[in-house]
């Protein structure tokens, strides 16, 4: 198979802490591989190493046939990078940002302008082209950031948490763009904290935890390993919890988990919801909340690693960075 990205045994240490502890990664040409993991799992470190921004302490990687350590300039000719934090210039306008990048990539002034106009149009930013980035919404910035990484028509694209901090609408817009890119034949390495995002975009998913790869496979395979959906019940009266737990155990065949008055149990079949509702009704018990949801990242981790996700980095997610999708709960307890 033709691999666009091939990394072996990547190690990166910062003092005593190990950010990456021997990671292998393979991305076939023309495919999207999603790297899924909580903060501090080593996702960004991996992207920074592969994009030649950081030297690994051990291991090596080949991008598009060129070694990242021996021939970084040729690697940079092939890649585009969209970082976690918008890497565009706040004081310049959208058009100026893209023209600057075109000029740096060796386009003539006229070609750089044409390319910028073309991309702004494609990303629905044409009307805002002359405004400084400081006036852009979060979703617009991220789209401009994506446009900026595409000026040079990169064959291989690194998207480091492209939708972290975006509202659901802006997230959907970014997803649409990524889907179009992939349809056009780009290879994409995507990192994300959101299972749903990896599920939507990636051909295969690699799960990172504490600087190691803990699982990989197609989204469907991983989901089966995680165990499908979860039934969640919050009894109205806390005193009813033991009785409701007994009903759940009986109907689902699993021992329910309880946390602050909420019971969860794997729902192997969707009909479990109505069965539970009927039983509660019949027993005269009421619930404030009763429903199915997809496994959260915590539960994916629990299932794949046998432990809860690593504690988030020193920087806690800002309130607006909280994912809105119900199946993508942050790794914060």
């Amino acid at each position, binding site marked *: 198979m033709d691999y666009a990205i091939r990394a072996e045994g990547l190690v990166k240490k910062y003092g005593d802490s190990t950010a990456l502890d021997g990671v292998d990664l393979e991305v076939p040409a023309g495919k999207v591989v999603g790297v899924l993991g909580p903060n501090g799992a080593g996702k960004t470190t991996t992207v*920074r190493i592969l*994009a*030649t*921004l*950081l*030297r690994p302490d051990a291991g090596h990687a080949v991008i*598009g*046939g060129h070694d990242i350590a*021996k*021939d*970084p*300039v*040729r690697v*940079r*000719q*092939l*890649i*585009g*990078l969209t*970082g*976690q*934090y*918008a*890497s*565009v*210039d706040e*004081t*310049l306008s959208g058009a*100026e940002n893209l023209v*600057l*990048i075109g*000029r*740096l*990539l*060796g386009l003539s002034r006229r070609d750089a302008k044409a390319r910028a106009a*073309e*991309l702004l*149009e*494609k990303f629905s930013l044409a009307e805002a082209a002359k405004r*400084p980035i400081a006036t852009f919404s979060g979703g617009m910035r991220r789209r401009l950031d994506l446009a*900026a*990484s*595409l000026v*040079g*028509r*990169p*064959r291989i694209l690194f998207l480091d948490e492209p939708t972290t901090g975006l509202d659901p609408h802006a997230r959907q817009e970014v997803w649409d763009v990524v889907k*179009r*890119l992939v349809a*056009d*034949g*780009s290879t994409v390495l995507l990192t994300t904290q959101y299972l749903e995002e990896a599920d939507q975009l990636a051909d295969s998913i690699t799960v990172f935890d504490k600087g190691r790869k803990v699982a990989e496979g197609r989204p469907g395979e991983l989901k089966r390993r995680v165990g499908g959906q979860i039934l969640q019940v919050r009894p109205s009266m806390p005193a009813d919890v033991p009785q409701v737990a007994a009903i759940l155990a009986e109907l689902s065949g699993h021992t329910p988990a309880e946390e602050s008055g909420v019971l969860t149990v794997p729902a192997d079949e969707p009909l479990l919801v109505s069965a539970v509702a009927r039983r509660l009704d019949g027993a005269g018990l009421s619930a404030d909340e009763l429903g199915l949801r997809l496994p959260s990242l915590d539960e994916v981790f629990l299932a794949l690693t046998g432990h809860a996700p690593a504690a988030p980095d020193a920087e806690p997610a800002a309130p607006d960075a909280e994912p809105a999708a119900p199946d993508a709960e942050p790794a914060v307890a």
Partner: protein
Amino acid sequence: MATDTLAPDTASTPAHTKPARIGLVPTLHHSLALAGRGATKFLRSPIQLVDVVLTPIISLLMFVYLFGKAISGGDPDAYLQWVVPGVMVMTVFQASIGIGVALTTDAATGIFDRFRSMPIARSAPLIGAVLADFIRYAVCLGTLIVLALVMGYRPDTTVPAALAALGLLIAFAMSFSWISVYLGMLVKTPGSVQGLMTILVLPLTFASSVFVKPEGMPGWLQAWSDVNPVSLMADTTRGLLGDGAVASPLTGSLAWMAGMVVVFLPLAMRAYRKNNG
């Protein structure tokens, strides 16, 4: 070019055995493109603009009207002729320390990551930042010259000599700004860069021929002033603007400038690479 906007460039590159390098001409090209970015940013920042306009005005007014009479012994007009070239050197020199402070904040943002992930020279963002300050020095010197002429300063010079003086002053500021770039890459906090540079700038500007003639200084101070780059540059500027010899201070100034670039450009680059892989 592909017809579709998003389609990647799939033209295959042959497998080379020799690693690709960015040559000198493309490096200059990238640096100039980034200098354009820096200059645009500067012109859109009213506070920075006010700073480089007000600092020379305050310095010149203060030194001429506040200290001038005391220093010159009663002939303010003669003192004006003496001090204007010196204040030119002092203000561009002081303006040059701002770059390290600005770079500590700029280099930490995502935009520098983008530059470093592109096939451009690694030194281009730093060289571009140094070159972008051309516009700051030009505004600074322009303000100073207009004010000095209004105050009665009358240089006895030719247009080519005056332009040479301005060019040298800007080159002087750019060469010395590499110290600030280096410190910015090394200490990484804006406040520390500012503090360290102030410690460096004060003895250089005051123990020099900027404000007083070195003949009146104690021997040891005179010895320092004679080799002080600020003195040498002030004397060069005076010479080109019609008051004194040029050759000897010019040689000294050029030697200092070359020394600064040769020592601090590589140091700054090394610190920049170390911070950023």
